[in-house]
Structures are given as C-alpha cells and as structure tokens.
C-alpha cells in the first residue's frame, strides 16, 4: 500500500536536492568552520552561503541570521534572551493563547521566575486582535511574541499590524514563523519584525536545524554559552550539513513558493468544500480565508480524532488530530479550546496538511475513504446525534 502523506505541518520529507547538497559536508568537507585551514574555510564558506540564502528569503541582512537547532530553540532564545537582557527596562511580555508550546511553555517558565506575561485571547477563527496588543503594552513591556501562522488551524495573524504597534511603542516583536518561512512571503522590514523563528524540516530541509533572525541592535543575551560561534550569539560547533541543507531548502523555496501556494490553496479549498459536503456535522476550524495554503482543520462531531487517525492510517493516509489522545495530555488541543470550541467537539478534530507533492488523486482518495470511516465510528458511538 502506498503511503499518502498529509501531515506536512508535522514535518516534510527532505528534498533530494537538499540531501545531495548536504552529503559532502559529512565526509569530504567535514571541517569545523571555526578553524583556519582549508577544510575549515570550505565549511565556513558553506555556512555563510546558507546564511545569505535564508536572509534573502526574509529581506534581512545575513549578519542578522543565526543558526540554531530548530524552531523550539529559536523560540526559547527569543523569549528568554530578550526578557533577561532587558531586566532594567521591564519585566513584562505579551503573547497569545494559541502559540506553539515552545513559546507558551517558555512564557510560563518566565512567569515562574518572576516575570509577567499577558496571554492574549483569540477570536473564534484563531485571530489575534492587534488592538488587544496595543492595550496590553505597558511601560514594563519588553517583548511581544505572536506567531505568523498557527500550526494547528492555519490562521495567519496580522503580523505587519502587530509589528507596527510594537515598533511605535518601542517594544521588540518576535514572530514564530516555523509554519510560514519558505511558504508565505516574509519581509522583516515591512512587517517590522525584530526576531523570527525558523525550523529547517518544515520546508523540506533536514531536522535538527533552524535559525533565528535577530534585528541588528536588538538587546538580547545568548541562550547557549561556550565557543564564540555565530558572533557570540549561539555557542556550539556548527551543524554544517544541517545548515547547508537549510540554506538549500530556502533557495528552493524562493523559487517554488509562489506556484506552491497557488497549487495548494486550490487543493485546500476543494478539500474543505468536499468534506463539508460529504460528511454531516462538520465544522471548519481556523479562518476561512486568512489561512495557510496547505492547512485543512475540521471538527467532525460524534467521531473521535485519534480513532479517525488510526482508521485513515489503515488506509495508508497520514494525518493528525488535536484530540486529547493525540495531544499527549487529558485535554484536547489548547488552540481549539482557546478558539471557544467545546471540548466534546474538539475531540473530533482532524488536521490535514498538504505538501509540494500532494496530488488531486491523493485528495480524492482521502475523500473516498473518510466518509465511511466517520460512519463506522458514529455507528459505534452510544451518543445519538440530534440531526
């Protein structure tokens, strides 16, 4: 049975061209970029080339891009680094209820250390109101962190507006762009972004590598201490193959992004319309238009998310869910709950995220097998649906 992979928000397959670009840096070009001799210089040149490729996709200066181990590290670095560097200025940060746990749990950690955090609500579409950001900023605020697009429901936030508000107030603005870098256009100057998190494996690059954009002049302390790598901003021997891979992935994304967005948003809208048509009692989660081109997230009443996921897996289809059983806790997704979706409905959530290789045929197959799966699970349920 052929696998139909529809969980690209979780991870993407590494592009073969990316793997090819990385391979020499494991063996022939194995040098440590911090050394002065030939193989070291070769590795150094490779990471600087990767830095330029990442920077160019952000509209940034290469000197403002620092390589990390991934999105989680970049988020942690942004929050902890800014807050501890600005202790004399203030002790307050602002974020929102549907952030990735890499941001939310870091904000919680900082709260336990005596900092203050305002967790802004979102509307029923998962959208942050920029005016809420403006109102939450006080004299002690040192950071606003609002994600570019949500990983579960795909809602794209008004980051340019939020950036403008933060800039006017003289507060640093961080955005977690793990789901958007290489997928949606980003311009850190136009959007007034001061810090931005990137993960390699979400754009057909390798796992275990990411980057953080830090605007020149931003007061921040390093998260990792040790060697003086990355202009003393991030210690640790460079993950040269990974960084080269991330650079190559950014280079490919720069070419593919426009057509990919057009292709996927058509498939996305077809899939959403067809699911709503073919399955009863389904609601779309997230914003109807301001959403990632590859994201479909629905709640299917009377069927539990993990049971649907396992059933689809039996048909060779990989998707994800925000049910309690898949979140690893006893509660369903914090994102769906923050959007005001009742827990009993949130347990029936299903997320389908398309990718570069997704075809109409794959979507059609999903649409063929999903209704009978839902039917079977609903028949097994003791709850009689009202309609």
């Amino acid at each position, binding site marked *: 049975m052929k696998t139909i992979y529809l969980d690209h928000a979780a991870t993407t397959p590494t592009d073969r061209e990316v793997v090819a670009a990385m391979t020499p840096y494991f063996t022939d070009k194995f040098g440590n970029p911090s050394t002065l001799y030939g193989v070291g210089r070769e590795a150094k040149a490779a990471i600087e080339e990767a830095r330029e490729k990442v920077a160019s996709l952000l509209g940034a200066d290469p000197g403002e891009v620092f390589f990390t181990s991934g999105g989680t590290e970049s988020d942690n670095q942004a929050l902890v680094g800014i807050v501890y560097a600005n202790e004399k200025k203030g002790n307050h940060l602002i974020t929102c209820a549907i952030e990735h746990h890499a941001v939310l749990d870091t904000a919680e950690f900082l709260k336990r250390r005596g900092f203050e955090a305002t967790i802004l609500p979102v509307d029923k579409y998962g959208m942050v109101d920029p005016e809420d950001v403006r109102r939450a900023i006080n004299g002690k605020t040192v950071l606003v962190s609002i994600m570019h697009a949500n990983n579960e429901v795909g809602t794209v936030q008004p980051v340019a507006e939020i950036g403008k508000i933060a800039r006017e107030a003289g507060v640093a603005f961080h955005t977690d762009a793990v789901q958007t870098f290489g997928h949606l256009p980003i311009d850190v100057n136009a959007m007034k972004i001061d810090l931005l998190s990137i993960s390699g494996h979400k754009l057909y690059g390798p796992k275990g590598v990411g980057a953080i954009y830090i605007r020149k002049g931003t007061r921040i302390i390093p998260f990792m201490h040790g060697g003086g790598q990355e202009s003393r901003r991030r210690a640790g021997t460079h993950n040269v193959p990974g960084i080269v891979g991330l650079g190559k992935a950014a280079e490919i994304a720069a070419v593919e992004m426009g057509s990919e967005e057009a292709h996927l948003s058509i498939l996305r809208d077809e899939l959403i319309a067809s699911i709503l048509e073919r399955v009863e009692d389904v609601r779309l989660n997230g914003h109807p238009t301001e959403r990632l081109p590859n994201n479909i997230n629905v709640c299917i009443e009377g069927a539990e998310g*993990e*049971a649907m996921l*396992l059933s689809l897996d039996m048909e060779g289809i990989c998707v994800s869910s925000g*049910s309690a*059983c898949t979140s690893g806790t006893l509660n*369903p997704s914090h994102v769906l709950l923050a959007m005001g979706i009742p*827990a009993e409905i949130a347990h029936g959530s299903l997320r389908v995220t398309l990718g570069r290789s997704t075809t109409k045929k794959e979507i059609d197959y999903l649409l063929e097998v999903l209704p009978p799966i839902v039917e079977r699970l609903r*028949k*097994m*349920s003791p709850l009689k649906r009202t309609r």
Partner: protein
Amino acid sequence: MYSEKVMEHFRNPRNVGEIENPDGVGEVGNPVCGDVMKITIRVNHDRIDDVKFQTLGCGAAIATSSMVTEMAMGKKLDEAMTISKQAVAEALDGLPPAKMHCSVLAADGLHAAIEDYRARQNRKEEQA
C-alpha cells in the same frame, strides 16, 4: 505505540451494539473528557449470556471495550465483577501509560452494568 492486539480489536471490534431490553446497562465517561461507553448485558441464571458495547472514543477506548466484552461473555456475574483494568490491559498485550484510563473505563462500564442488573433484581424482590 499500540500493540498488534489493540489494533486488531480496533479493526474488528467484538460485540458492538446494544442489546434490546437488556437486563443491565452501564454507562461511563462523558463527552467532555472524550470517552463515552455504554455496555448492555443479558443475564441468565447469574451468568452473562450476552454483552454488547457502544463507545465513542480513541483507539484504546474501542479496543478495551471490545476486549472487556470478550472477557465477560459467558462468565458468572461474580467472576465478571473481578475483571480488573489491569487484566483488560494485559489481555491486549499492554497499553501505553497515557491510555490506561481507557481500560479503567471499560472495566467500570462492565461493573456498572452488572450492578445495574443487581439493583433491578433487588427492586423486583422488594416488590414481590
């Protein structure tokens, strides 16, 4: 993450449905926490003649429901009352730690159905 046995019961659950005019009904769980289970039994001479389940829940909830009905079928009521959550989990070759509550629910559902049957019997005796 699930054993082959859990997946087998999830794919082909035993005794799904609802017994008409059952002798005992056990309903446990609630939709807010995500798992709801209903077990109906038919009792004959203190023995479970038939048992069926309906479950809204995850893979483990469905597999444990199926397993508990299989284990209870044909058993004396006293014996069926001793079916523990550990026994259900073990019969399925184990469950991931986060899923152990599903096996509690399945065993609780069965015990609730038996208790319901006994309460009905007591009422009948009182009326007689």
